[in-house]
């Protein structure tokens, strides 16, 4: 892997392109997960961090790992802003992943509120990483609002269904000049690899690991898949023939001058 290939978020450089979730599994597995994933960024729900000393998730995060607190539980931009500020007060740093959901069933992000919260928090100096439904107009609005990256969902959160929104994520990768980090719904290492081959800057996963038989081993599998996908992207994928055969005589061979 090219050593100069860095993920840059709000001026911070990262070598790893695997963002690890910390929910849905035992706190004592976090350290092993980080290690096997080779992750340098780990998300955590502020609502889980806002707890008494007995089980604070913050105590389980290894030194040197960048925290990416999320605003889960927020239903409006205002609530997300309040949670982000609380995260900063709790000592979680300046990174924030905006999650605004007005639907308790599918937990789909509210793009309009997400843009509003991004604008406010970017102005306050946060490194804002908004979780969003992959929509080009929203992505452009997020760029203008000061986001450090755009985090489109691959499929409904927790579903492990993979790249259901693949074509729309590709549009964001092609059109948006910010890192596109594929978030939510990635269920297998092969899907993470595919997202990276497409040109995603990073992949975030949580449930796929939490529900795996052996979490650290799965974290390792994801790390390898993400690295492979990144290498493939940088190498430039070979031609893929999707329909019919390639004519050996060029169709334009008749042209003379």
């Amino acid at each position, binding site marked *: 892997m090219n050593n100069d290939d860095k993920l840059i978020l709000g001026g911070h450089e990262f070598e790893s392109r695997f963002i690890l979730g910390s*929910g*849905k*599994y*035992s*706190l004592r597995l976090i350290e092993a997960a980080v290690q096997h994933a080779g992750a340098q960024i780990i998300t955590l*729900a*502020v*609502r*889980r961090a*806002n*707890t*008494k000393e*007995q*089980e604070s998730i913050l105590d389980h995060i290894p030194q040197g790992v960048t925290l990416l607190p999320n605003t889960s*539980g*927020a*239903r409006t931009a205002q*609530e997300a802003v*309040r*949670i982000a500020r*609380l995260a900063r007060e709790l000592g979680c740093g300046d990174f924030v992943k905006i999650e605004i*959901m*007005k*639907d*308790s*069933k*599918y*937990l789909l992000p509210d793009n309009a509120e997400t843009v509003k919260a991004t604008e406010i928090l970017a102005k306050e100096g946060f490194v804002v990483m908004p979780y969003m439904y992959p929509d080009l107009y929203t992505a452009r609005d997020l760029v203008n609002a000061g986001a450090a990256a755009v985090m489109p969902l691959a499929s409904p959160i*927790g*579903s*492990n269904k993979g790249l259901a929104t693949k074509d729309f994520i590709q549009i964001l990768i092609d059109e948006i000049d910010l890192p596109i980090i594929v978030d939510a719904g990635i269920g297998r290492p092969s899907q993470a690899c595919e997202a990276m081959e497409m040109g995603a800057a990073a992949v975030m996963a949580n*449930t796929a690991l*939490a*529900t795996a038989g052996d979490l650290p081993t799965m974290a390792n599998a994801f790390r390898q898949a993400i690295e492979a996908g990144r290498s493939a992207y940088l190498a430039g994928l070979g031609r893929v023939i999707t329909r019919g055969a390639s004519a050996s005589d060029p169709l334009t061979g008749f042209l003379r001058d």
Partner: protein
Amino acid sequence: MDNSFFVDSAHLSKEALEKKHRLENDPSFRKNHMEYLEGMEVLKSDICEKVMAQMKSYDYAKYTAKDVKAALEHETCTIEDFKALLSPAAEPFLEQMAQRARLETSKHFGNTVYIFTPLYIANYCENYCVYCGFNCYNDINRMKLNEQQIEHEMKVIADSGMEEILILTGESRAKSDVKYIGEACKLARKYFRMVGLEIYPVNTDEYKYLHECGADYVTVFQETYDSDRYEQLHLFGHKRVWPYRFDAQERAILGGMRGVAFSALLGLADFRKDALATAMHVYYLQRKYPHVEMSLSCPRLRPIKNNDTINPLEVHEKQLCQIICAYRIFLPYVGITVSSRESARFRNGIVKIAATKISAGVSTGIGDHESKYTGKEADAPEGDEQFEIDDGRSLGTMYKDIEGEGLQPVLNDYLYV
């Protein structure tokens, strides 16, 4: 064994006994349970009609093994699938249902199990609900904690490490008014991250007030969705008004509460129909208010003081497990609470399948946390309990036991915003 609910206390006056017997034996002496009392807000809502239509048309005998197998194969569980999973035809498929339920639980909640504890602050009650230990004719020690006592109880509970509390009262507006409950909520916010309420149903503006005082989750048990059966069990008092109770969750949502919880008390009526109606109540309200968090409880009838014969009839553990699995498969995103009415063995098993929340360090009595938690002799009077609990594990023991099952105990996952 049929339930015999009627117990006469030797302490009742002749007049009181006469009234009690008349309420029990003469339906014409009882108020119309479908008619609102003065001061009760009438909500214009179509939810009740929808739920009742589903419940009334539910003929669980018509479902076959084929329907159950098809339901288990479908990726999304439809209402028809849910009806099949609740039917007697699904009983032989309990293990497959549990496997599926476990998968859904892990997708939405991972391996987390939330822990909370209830705090009863008063047991006065103005209602005659024949199965309940707090009913106004039952001879028990009545008590209402004052603010100092409430705070003392909260300190004892908070010192044990608990971060989520559910405040309960008997259903007496006269003894435990909304302001009194509001003050308890304000105190609770000092000691706990999450404050829930399980009190008598109130109007939207009162829910709004309680929300401002710090409560953010409202639990109301409908007891039974069969209004005719409800009438035979809730003979006297404001609780008798069935439709006002039905709309409580919707008023709580309109009052700004983050979440609402639902339940039928299994064993009071046809449990399959009650389980269906409870889930449909959640389903339709979720469609109307998609931002709200919803959860389900699954209590079975328990013995009470002065009547140890009360039991959940045909709702055995297998049936309860079937209901919980069906709930999970149909409503994968909702929280499911299993109370200390159930045994430690059952609760240890069900958290591995579908339940996401359990209570620990439980007392359903009044003002007795210190004596129960420390074993210290009580130096103040204590109020009697609403029902007998089965699982008396402390928070510490529960925490260790959950970890021992390979699950992750969670004391708080909540922010008041």
